[in-house]
């Protein structure tokens, strides 16, 4: 959960609708995408959990293939290849969040997502 966010705050639902995140540990040598590797920490990668099709939270991860499947309309993304769409109706890759470990060894984000999360829209460009 982003810092300072709590279930009690009034816009929690609206915030979590954008901020939901998936953290997955891969073998660094399995990561095919160079930027993905740069933005990971020892094989741990963080991707937006909000499907780029119409915004369901994605929840079916297959460990062997590193694929995640969205339960709503079965878009499938490859988490070892920059979150690329490999099947289904989604139109673009899952946004990745750049992370590192801080001094105390906790993972932390190095800023916000670099592109809008969730479904595409006219002004997205």
């Amino acid at each position, binding site marked *: 959960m982003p810092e300072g966010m709590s279930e009690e705050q009034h816009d929690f639902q609206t915030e979590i609708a*954008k901020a939901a995140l998936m953290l997955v540990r891969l073998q660094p040598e399995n990561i095919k995408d160079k930027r993905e590797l740069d933005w990971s920490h020892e094989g741990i990668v963080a991707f937006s959990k909000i499907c780029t099709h119409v*915004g369901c939270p994605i929840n079916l991860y297959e460990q062997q293939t590193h694929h995640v499947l969205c339960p709503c309309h079965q878009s499938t993304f490859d988490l070892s290849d920059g979150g690329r769409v490999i099947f289904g109706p989604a139109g673009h890759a899952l946004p990745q969040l750049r992370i590192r470990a801080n001094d105390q060894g906790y993972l932390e984000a190095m800023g916000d997502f670099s592109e809008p999360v969730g479904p595409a829209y006219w002004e997205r460009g």
Partner: protein
Amino acid sequence: MSTTSDGAAQRRGKAPAGERVADWADGRLGIYSLAKANMRKIFPDHWSFMLGEVCLYSFIIIILTGVYLTLFFHPSMAEVTYEGPYVPMQGVRMSEAFQSTLDISFEVRGGLLIRQIHHWAALVFLAGMFTHMMRVFFTGAFRKPREINWLFGFLLFFLGMLTGFTGYSLPDDLLSGTGLRFIEGVFLSIPVVGTYISMFVFGGEFPGTDLIARLYPVHVLLLPGIMLGLLVAHLILVFYHKHTQYPGAGKTEKNVVGMPLLPVYMAKAGGFFFLVFGVIAALSAIATINPIWTIGPYRPDQVSTGAQPDWYMGFAEGLVRVMPGWEITAWGHTLVLGVFIPIVLFPLVLFAIGLYPFIESWITGDKREHHILDRPRNAPTRTAFGVAWMTAYFVMLVGGGNDLWATHFHLSINSITWFVRIAFFVGPVLAFIATKRICLGLQRRDKDKVLHGRETGIIKRLPHGEFIEVHEPLAQEQLHTLTQHEQPEPYEIGPEVDENGVKRKIKRSQKLRSKLSKGYYGENNVIPKPTREEYHEITSGHGHH
């Protein structure tokens, strides 16, 4: 004067109470002449005419149970922590809408049953409308003068889907919230104005805190109100046009053969209402529907697998699921075709059947009134179109449940999706061809039966040893039923040059119409029905076989 009338009243005694009430009402409402005109109105009978009744009765049941639900439902997205009697949910954060639905289910007397009846009746209502619409379609009951009433019915079906969807969204559970998120994505995909519409509808960013309170009046007042108006208009028109009837001996375009409204039809219909209510109540008592307490409240970062909308949304769901994810980005803008195309196709496919009556009457040029129904085989092109349409519809229902097909039948989701993508285009074409051939085959068989009689299955040995099957000539009524239909000529454009050899101007639409008309009535699209001469030649004199 007063004495004489007093005397007359005295002699006859006082009229019975019922009669006096009736007199009172007649003096103010004119019920006698109304009753006289309508009580003995004749309704023809056929099992397929009860499909419309199923719709009417389930609508009444929905309204009655819906009113009860409004007494306890709180359309609010304010967050609360559950402290009610259902232990697994205690301490869980949820919206008031969700909490009140839990309360309806666990604390309100009869609440769960009423909720279940409301939801089951909605499913039956839409299934009823779908089948009723197909009955009207395949029998050609939509032809003049009933085109407007067909449109009313079609709108009821369309609005019924919207009403069902808004109702489904009210409890604010994990499934319905996921459905609303989908709606957000749909809005966002609309070019140029998408984000504005989404912000407007949700009152800000998704999910916001306004939506349930906004959906509520739409679901309980606006849509049902419009539907009630349409429904009444629909029934008035049925009454006004008089009911259609299937062809048969003694039935003409100018009469109606059947039973009187009172008492026969009213008794049957009244009984049937309770039958429908009984079946829906039994379903609701036995089969759980939408158990929101196991699904849980909506949170945008949670979801369950195997999520399915109500059946009538399956067609839209299928389109959305099997569409490839096309996105075009250019000049700083994104065109989200992967979502936009399906949601445009959805109403387009539906309206293709909704507007069909007008298309058919343009093609055939038939402007006469029709009160005798078509036997579907005698309108092969229409029947084939209807079956093709249904094929597309059902293929998409499969697409809408592709995950369930995959898990239940151990198939690959990718191959199912590809199957649906192809079958959506190929399936209707194959269905069209097959249906048309079957219809023509049935026409041939009708012709054969008329000319050579019915096969009796009795084998007779002739004196010289030959075996023949005895054919029995049809009764006069059956002959009528099999030969009463008309076989119009296709629309002709006429010669391309006029009598002076000057080329006539022929509009493109005329050419198209003539082509389509041949598809309806041209050679190879109808089997000429037996003529009187053919019949007499075969049946007169020599015993035939």
